[in-house]
């Protein structure tokens, strides 16, 4: 299985080259939130895609499509377009019915700001009609919301629409799947995209993830669950995976898409092969809703399944792009999982969390992080874990603190874990 193109939209750059340079430089994309007035929020920081430079326009045809594209969809179609260009994949190269899409997407319903604002206004006016009574006046709400809200706004909130727009933009008439498995969605979408090809349902799959939750509902939701860093006064230092002073993750946004291709198909059309998509492993903790299994056995099993799928030995792994969220629990459990899966090879192996730079891209995280591992492998370096100042005795691996490091490695793992006990792992190999 070949990866013939990659495309990313991230808080530290759009396009694989800009992203690789920023990873190597150890640049942080975390800043005070500019997307909305977050005064009074416990968490006021995020890793935003810079709207002064990001522009989806060149990647969308006809232009009117933009009006029904949510923010994650704009990221997704841009990443997919960049990946397809990198793969030199033109409509003549593949039967449209043999071109599929597999995308990880947020599943938290319509978080479009137009809809939120329309709902809020309608609720307030409905309450006024009710004489200010607390009881929710649903008929009045329905009438006011309907009158104020453009019906097409509803289409921006459907979770499968990002994958549908990728299909429309790229003429992909093959299988079109959306995975909404929270923070493992991007990883699973790539793994399941590999499976689509292996079972013979497509020759090429555009696979990845997209998410954009830097809005009042997204920030509040994760903040109320106690998962976000509150280090508001020094944003670039807030995301500190594996550091003893870590206090939660920082929400990021963006998209990553890779072009997966059956090896003989890629070779036959003379495609540039960037890496081998070699293995995929997936398990579920089946334990608690957000707590991870303390012994990390299911997470370790996902890694082992991935190695077995790739026919790889633990000693083959030269770099791990960790899930590394920077929550107190994840980093300890993940460290345990890595040691369980890789044994003594875990010590001395570079393990870094690029979330220290780009934040947690949620449904896009695994896809962007696989691209991080790929550009690092091809660029001869391992990305750093920023803000690693005070070691945590329970996190005792080599996390590549603070500075990128020159390195030659031939295989890399990328881990993703998610609420609901999701565990997923991908392995790429040098081609």
């Amino acid at each position: 299985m070949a990866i013939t193109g990659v495309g990313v939209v991230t808080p530290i750059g759009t396009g694989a080259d800009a992203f690789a340079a920023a990873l190597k430089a150890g640049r942080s994309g975390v800043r005070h939130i500019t997307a909305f007035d977050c005064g009074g929020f416990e968490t006021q920081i995020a890793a935003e895609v810079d709207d002064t430079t990001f522009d989806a326009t060149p990647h969308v045809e006809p232009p009117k499509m933009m009006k029904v594209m949510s923010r994650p969809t704009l990221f997704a179609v841009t990443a997919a377009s960049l990946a397809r260009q990198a793969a030199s994949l033109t409509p003549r190269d593949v039967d449209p019915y043999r071109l599929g899409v597999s995308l990880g997407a947020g599943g938290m319903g319509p978080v479009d700001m137009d809809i939120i604002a329309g709902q809020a206004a309608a609720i307030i006016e409905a309450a006024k009609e009710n004489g200010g009574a607390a009881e929710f006046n649903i008929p009045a709400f329905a009438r006011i919301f309907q009158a104020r809200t453009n019906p097409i706004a509803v289409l921006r909130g459907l979770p499968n629409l990002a994958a549908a727009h990728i299909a429309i933009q790229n003429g992909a008439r093959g299988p079109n799947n959306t995975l909404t498995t929270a923070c493992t969605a991007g990883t699973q979408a790539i793994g399941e995209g590999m499976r689509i090809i292996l079972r013979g349902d497509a020759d090429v799959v555009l696979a990845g993830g997209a998410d954009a939750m830097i809005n009042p509902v997204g920030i509040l939701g994760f903040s109320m669950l106690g998962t976000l860093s509150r280090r508001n006064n020094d944003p670039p230092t807030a995301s500190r995976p594996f550091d003893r002073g870590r206090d939660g993750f920082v929400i990021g946004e963006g998209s990553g898409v890779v072009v997966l291709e059956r090896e003989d198909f890629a070779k036959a059309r003379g495609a540039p092969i960037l890496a081998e998509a070699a293995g995929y492993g997936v398990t579920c903790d089946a334990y608690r809703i957000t707590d991870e299994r303390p012994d990390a056995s299911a997470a370790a099993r996902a890694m082992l399944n991935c190695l077995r799928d790739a026919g790889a030995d633990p000693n083959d792994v030269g770099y791990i792009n960790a899930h590394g969220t920077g929550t107190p629990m994840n980093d300890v459990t993940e460290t345990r999982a890595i040691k369980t899966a890789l044994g003594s090879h875990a010590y001395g192996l570079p393990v870094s969390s690029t979330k220290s730079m780009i934040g947690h891209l949620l449904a896009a995280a695994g896809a962007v992080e696989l691209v991080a591992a790929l550009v690092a492998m091809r660029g001869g370096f391992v990305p750093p874990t920023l803000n690693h100042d005070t070691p945590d005795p329970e996190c005792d691996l080599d996390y590549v603190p603070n500075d990128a490091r020159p390195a030659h490695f031939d295989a890399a793992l990328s881990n993703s874990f998610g609420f609901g006990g999701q565990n997923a792992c991908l392995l790429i190999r040098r081609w």
Partner: protein
Amino acid sequence: MPADPSLVDPERLGERVRDIIAEVLVVARDRVRPHSALIAELGAESIDFLDLIFHLEESLGKDIPPQRWYEFVRHRLPDQDPSHAITTDIVREFAEQEAARCTGPPISGASS
């Protein structure tokens, strides 16, 4: 009374319809001619008509249930291919009809 009182003037209303079509379909205004076919020439799809009606509602300051548009098309363009038959002029006719209508029926399901 329309949200913009000047839209009682048919010429102003016709210009507003052109503006709305250009905005909704994201095409240059000079491509929106009286006989331009919205679907075949300007690339409209089903949801664009919902968008268009929403913009008309805002301009005219009244509710326009989409069913009114569908019924208008059925009666005005019987047995015609909507891809070619729905033109700027047809939308303008509908807008004039709606502008002349005194009050709209309440949206179904609402209480007042």
